[in-house]
């Protein structure tokens, strides 16, 4: 009897171990482009890099407070030009190498030097040079004061992540060749199939809840939805269609939750040099005529939220969000159009450009609804035009659009990243050609002052000023926040699924029974 109990105990123990080692399976439609710190720039590739290594700074996933990652503390010089980071002692990469000040300098220098055209190294280019003070102290000198430098050193940005000098070649992008600090080790990425991780036992932070994780890559939303319904995966993240979200929400065997707000913004843009939208009155009229409520209800079944600001209304870490754009007012729109010389007898003919797949399957419906809402003025006549993404961006960048849709996910979590790209940073690349607008210099000056102002209160005022100005100049019209992306669905035996404004799923905090 004692022998039998002993055997049963051993069998039970093995069963328990087996359950504990059952991999957690995530489903997604995302794809890795490159796992290269200096040459990748997309949500999912960065997610894989973040899951496997850390940066000097971190955002607390619950409070969104900026805190130390690899650095346990830091000092900022009075002029804001020097940042001294004190490295947490005892951190090792999974190849056994020590993570110290030398490794930090090596990684950041390497990223700055390689600066791949497909990467986001530009986001940390404010770094002038780096000096190792001692094994656990590194000093970073900037080219100019940067109020958001600590955010730039945060793990959301792949070029700020730290990895082992022992494993990664010095002068090659080295797609997927690296050793990080954890929480996970990258075991394998098989293109278009899956990404496998195993918890790194030497991780300096809290140990991951699941020892093994696999992220299975599905071709489209329909397959992703079917996978969670069939129980092939434990949870899914990015990207379900609005109809699938509604259906899964009603499915008692699946838990579905929204995690608003979203950092993603969808908006209408104008090339301010292109007739007839070169007339600010026309653009203002459109901002009054567009029907956000119809987009949200008719296309997205109420799962996205209308927005009246380019900067998401989140606090912290954003500041400076202000809902400046007007509510719908058709009479006002008609009045402005009349001032611009357009009436029912002399209608305004406009193109509305969209791209059919890049932003999901709903874009044609959005274009139809927006066109309908503008035509309700009785003065505007819309011709809907469609171009596949490659041709779309080519035409957009060469100034060939008058009115068109785009979407934005932030590079870093600060208001300037929601305001500068279309106005002062890449107005031609983003199709607005705002560099030819009479107020361009004013925007540029405000933005330069804002990004070098350390005082958040003053900075907030400057960001708000840009948004107030934009209501008159109307180079953009914010339409809706992409709340449909801030959704996860999981099986009832899965725990810890949550999302925050970084839009990154923390797989290390998820487990299943």
């Amino acid at each position, binding site marked *: 009897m004692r022998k039998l109990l002993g055997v049963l105990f051993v069998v039970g123990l093995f069963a328990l171990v087996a359950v504990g080692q*059952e*991999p957690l*399976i995530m489903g997604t439609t995302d*794809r890795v*482009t*490159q796992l*290269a710190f200096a*040459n990748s*720039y997309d949500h999912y590739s960065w997610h894989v890099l973040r899951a496997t290594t850390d940066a000097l700074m971190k955002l607390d996933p619950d409070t969104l407070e900026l805190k130390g990652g690899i650095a346990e503390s830091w000092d900022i010089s009075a002029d804001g030009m020097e940042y001294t980071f004190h490295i947490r002692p005892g951190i090792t990469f999974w190849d056994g190498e020590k993570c110290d000040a030398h490794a930090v300098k090596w990684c950041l220098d390497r990223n700055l030097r390689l600066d791949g*055209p*497909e990467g986001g190294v*530009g986001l940390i280019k404010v770094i002038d040079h780096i000096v190792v003070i001692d094994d656990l102290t590194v000093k970073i000198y900037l080219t100019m004061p940067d109020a958001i430098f600590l955010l730039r050193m945060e793990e959301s940005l792949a070029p700020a992540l730290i990895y082992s000098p022992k494993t990664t070649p010095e002068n090659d*992008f080295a*797609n997927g060749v690296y050793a990080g600090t954890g929480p996970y080790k990258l075991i394998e990425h*098989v*293109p*278009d*199939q*899956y990404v*496998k991780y195993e918890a790194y036992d030497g991780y300096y932070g809290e140990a991951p809840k699941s020892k*093994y994780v*696999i992220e*299975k*890559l*599905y*071709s*489209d939303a*329909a*397959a992703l939805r*079917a*996978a969670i*319904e*069939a*129980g*092939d*995966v434990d949870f899914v993240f990015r990207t379900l269609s609005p109809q699938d979200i509604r259906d899964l929400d009603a499915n008692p065997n699946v838990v579905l939750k929204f995690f608003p707000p979203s950092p993603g913004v969808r908006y209408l843009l104008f090339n301010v040099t292109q007739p007839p939208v070169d007339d600010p009155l026309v653009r203002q009229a459109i901002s009054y005529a567009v029907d956000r409520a119809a987009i949200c209800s008719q296309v997205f079944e109420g799962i996205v939220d209308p927005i009246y600001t380019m900067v998401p209304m989140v606090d912290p870490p954003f500041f400076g969000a202000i809902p400046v754009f007007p509510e719908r007012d058709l009479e006002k729109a008609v009045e402005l159009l009349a001032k611009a010389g357009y009436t029912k007898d002399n209608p305004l003919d406009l193109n509305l450009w969209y791209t059919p*797949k*890049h932003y999901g399957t709903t874009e044609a419906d959005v274009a139809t609804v927006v066109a309908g809402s503008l035509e309700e003025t009785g003065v505007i006549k819309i011709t809907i035009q469609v*171009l*596949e*993404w*490659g*041709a*779309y*961006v*080519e*035409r*957009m*960048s060469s100034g060939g659009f008058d009115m068109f849709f*785009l*979407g934005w996910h932030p*590079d870093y979590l600060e208001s300037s990243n929601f305001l*500068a*790209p279309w106005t002062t*940073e*890449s107005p*031609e*690349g*983003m199709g607005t050609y705002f560099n030819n607008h009479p107020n361009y210099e004013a925007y540029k000056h405000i933005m330069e002052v804002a990004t070098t102002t350390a005082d958040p209160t003053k900075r907030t005022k400057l960001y708000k000023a840009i948004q107030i100005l934009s209501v008159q100049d109307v180079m953009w019209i914010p339409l809706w926040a992409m709340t449909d992306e801030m959704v996860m669905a999981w099986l009832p035996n899965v725990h810890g699924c949550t999302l925050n404004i970084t839009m990154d799923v923390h797989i290390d905090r998820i487990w299943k029974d």
Partner: protein
Amino acid sequence: MGGISRYIAQRLLLTIPMLLILLTLVFLILRVMPGDPVLAMLGGRNISPELIEVYRHKMGVDRPIPVQYAEYLNGIIHGDFGKSFRTNKPVVWELFQRFPATLELAAFGLLFAALFGFTTGVLAATRADRPIDHAVRIFHVGSFAMPLFWLGLMLQVLFAVKLGWFPVASRLGGRIAFTFEPITGFYLLDSLIRGNGEVIADIAKHLVLPSITLGFALTGLLGRMTRASMLEVLDQDYVTTARAKGLKERVVILAHALRNALIPIVTVFGLQFAILMGGAVLTETVFSWPGVASFLVRSIEARDWPAIQGSIVFIAIFISIINLIVDVLYSVIDPRVRY
């Protein structure tokens, strides 16, 4: 050089101008199509025009088209299809990573089509103009008229979501992926070599729905051809003779009639491989199957010129080889054929 060797050499030589024409067409179509590959990759982002120019130069798309063409042909002659703009890896590497998945799917799709096509075709022919013949013919027409993507989705809903018999998509389950180590890339073969029953079952289950979907269109076509060919053969004197000799009907059908009926079918069978590869584009997409066809679809979306060119040429070479093999097999099935 023997007849068969000379024939194979001739066919291989003929493949060269065919490939050259194909290469040129694909190259030119991509350059004429709207959409810049650099902007497709970097556009919509906060990137300066100067950086876009730098990258255009790096990717070689700023050079004159004749220069690009010459470089492209030179590369192919040396087995270099270039690097994928999207993944930054050699196209050849990408294709060989995915080819086993496509070949495995195509083989099982073909197996399904052959089994059901031949069986139903013989069944219809031996019961010509009876209710079962009518039913089979309706099934044949329906099967190749049915859109593959719709069939795939319906199979997923019924057999994966509702009944839970098979997985929805992909090549292997999440848990198996942690333990399974491929050898050749042909997962079923690899799992048999490894001899792990659980892995074999998992991989086989993942193959069922995509194979049925891919094979379904061919089932109808092969079935109709088998029926027509069988009806013709069943009227021949040697079949009457076989029956008069007192042979069992099963022997008459399988040993005498079917073998001769297969001759025209095998010829078409090779040609059908091209249709099968077309079907693979849809099947691989619906079932998240990581093969060459789904790679091609993603490459087209991204204007990844080297990957598109490489994939099409790769598929063309593959189909040419299959056709050559089928032609050679022709002599095995029909002893009258000599090369």
